[in-house]
């Protein structure tokens, strides 16, 4: 229940095509994350699946049924919005029960389902409050509750954690992941945060300018980025990417090496540079190295602590088996 297939889907606003022809399959029960920089069309794509935006061409299937012309409420999908989109004049109870009320269920059944959802989301104490009297995290929970009671074939999340503070975001991330494990329902999750994508997804869809750059599991994307864009987008801190003589010496047009795959020495190594800022996190140290001749700045990540200070000379050696090589078109070469 909840296999979503996009066939040759396009979207244009007037003359501008924001999504060129695109094919994508999301398997039943899968947690798919659309990730990309802002303006890449990921939200538009989600809204097209939800039915809030019309398709310019192509079609969408849910469980083998063509739903391209089906109105949003009949697609069996539930959506959680970035702004929560709670109904401000209704109590939490009424908010969660609203879709059931629209379905025409009787009051006793609505109450039962609302309370079950509230129970699972720890909202029992807030049922009679208005959304304005809730914190950001609680509002998000109410929005999720409103989605759960509909028992949808797939959940759509549109950047649901962007309005929360960092600590809460980590907590909610876990909760949504756990919810997915428990319910085994298809989920499509849109975010610009690659950490959310890496931690939650079964399948990541990297988008840029409406084009799918790569589809794969988080580790696939990490270890085998298909092109320079994906390589630079996935992973934190960002992969160091450079071209020119240093890259040619390694036999490629462009070469990328992740900060955590670079060895550091104070005495000898492949590349020589000067230490800029060193960020000591305790568990890790990020060193920003300048004057290497590779790129403006090369970031290295070292497990544990190392005593370097600004202006020190440092030598970097890439782990040969972790080098990512790309051709002149930016595509991966093995």
């Amino acid at each position, binding site marked *: 229940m909840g296999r979503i297939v996009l066939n040759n889907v396009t979207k244009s606003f007037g003359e501008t095509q924001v999504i060129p022809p695109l094919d994508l399959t999301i398997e039943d029960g899968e947690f798919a994350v659309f990730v990309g920089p802002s303006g890449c069309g990921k939200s538009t794509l989600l809204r097209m699946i939800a039915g809030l935006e019309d398709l310019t061409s192509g079609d969408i299937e849910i469980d083998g049924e063509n739903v391209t012309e089906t109105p*949003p*409420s009949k697609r069996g999908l539930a*959506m959680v919005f*970035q702004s929560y*989109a709670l*109904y401000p*004049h209704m109590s939490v109870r009424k908010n969660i029960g609203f879709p059931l009320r*629209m*379905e025409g269920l009787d009051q006793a059944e609505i109450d039962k389902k609302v309370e079950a959802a509230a129970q699972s989301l720890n909202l029992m104490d807030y049922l009679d409050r208005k959304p304005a009297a809730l914190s950001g995290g609680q509002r998000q929970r109410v929005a999720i509750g409103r989605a759960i009671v509909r028992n949808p074939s797939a959940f759509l999340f549109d950047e649901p954690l962007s309005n929360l503070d960092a600590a809460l975001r980590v907590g909610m991330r876990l909760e949504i992941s756990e919810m997915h494990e428990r319910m085994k329902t298809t989920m499509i999750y849109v975010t610009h945060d690659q950490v959310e994508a890496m931690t939650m997804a079964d399948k990541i869809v990297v988008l840029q300018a409406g084009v799918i750059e790569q589809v794969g599991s988080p580790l696939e994307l990490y270890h085998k980025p298909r092109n320079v864009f994906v390589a630079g987008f996935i992973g934190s801190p960002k992969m160091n990417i450079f071209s020119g003589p240093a890259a040619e010496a390694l036999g490629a047009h462009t070469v990328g090496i992740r900060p955590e795959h670079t060895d550091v020495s104070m005495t000898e190594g492949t590349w020589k540079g000067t230490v800029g800022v060193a960020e000591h996190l305790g568990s890790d140290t990020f060193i920003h190295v300048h004057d290497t001749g590779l790129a403006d700045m090369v970031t290295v990540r070292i497990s544990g602590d190392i005593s370097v200070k600004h202006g020190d000379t440092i030598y970097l050696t890439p782990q040969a088996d972790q080098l990512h090589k790309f051709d002149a078109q930016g595509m991966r070469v093995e």
Partner: protein
Amino acid sequence: MSDRKLPRLLQTPAVLLLLVWMLVPLGMTLYFSFIRYVLNNLRRPEWTSPSLSNWRGFGNYEFVLNSKDFVLAIQNSLFIVVSILFLTVILGVLIAVLINKAFPGQGIVRVLLISPFFVMPAVNAVLWINMILDPVLGLQGIAVNGINDVLDNLRTMPVLGGFFSLWPEFEPISFRATQTSAIAVIMMVTWQWTPFAVLIFMTSLQSEDQQQKEAAVLDGASVWSQFRFLTLPHLGRPIAIVVMIQAIFHLSLYAEIEIVSRGNGNKNLPYLIGEFANNNIGAASATGIFAVILANIVAIFLLRMVGKTLME
């Protein structure tokens, strides 16, 4: 000088001015309402200047309460105000929702919609009563004549003519008559003040959260349900404001009533005051005090209502 005294001192002029502004007229009205005070009386010339020696106690109030027009004036005041509020709010919401969606010519339509509000009340009344509602020369008379002409022609038809000859001849309605002049006032003021409601509701609609609407669409809410459960609650506050402002304005309607019927069978409290004030200042003042009491009763209800919506 302590910390509190200086701000108090600096506020004093404003507070004093407001007190004088409000209390002097109110005090004078109260004073006049308890004495005999007329502008012209040949038999009792001493009544033509205000003086405590002309004390009448509650005599003016009794006189006003017993005058044949008083109950009518109160009823009419409330009837006119409540009808206008009801119509402007409903029409205002409907029109605002209608023109909220983008369409070509939206700017012009909005300007045209606002324009009745710029017409002076007296001009508005003259236009309506003479050019639109007049049973002979107004649009109403012309339209009724036209319908009757059409009916006359239909009656001459071979078969269906018999059916149409069962229809009565339509008669234009005179809106200057006792029974209908209040309705004429309600129509013209509604026409003039609906734009005000539209304007306020329109700005409020534009601040409505679109994602809430989308969420409602996904939740399976029909267009009507979206209006009922999202738009209408969203408009609660502006509706309260429109009702309050309009109630204040329409309790003191005067020009329209003067022009439509010269108060013939259609007085409200301000008009009654005006009539008394032609000569009997004492009675006019007593009526004024009644008007203050009525306005306060209305205000208490309205403030409760507004307060409730603002609390939510």
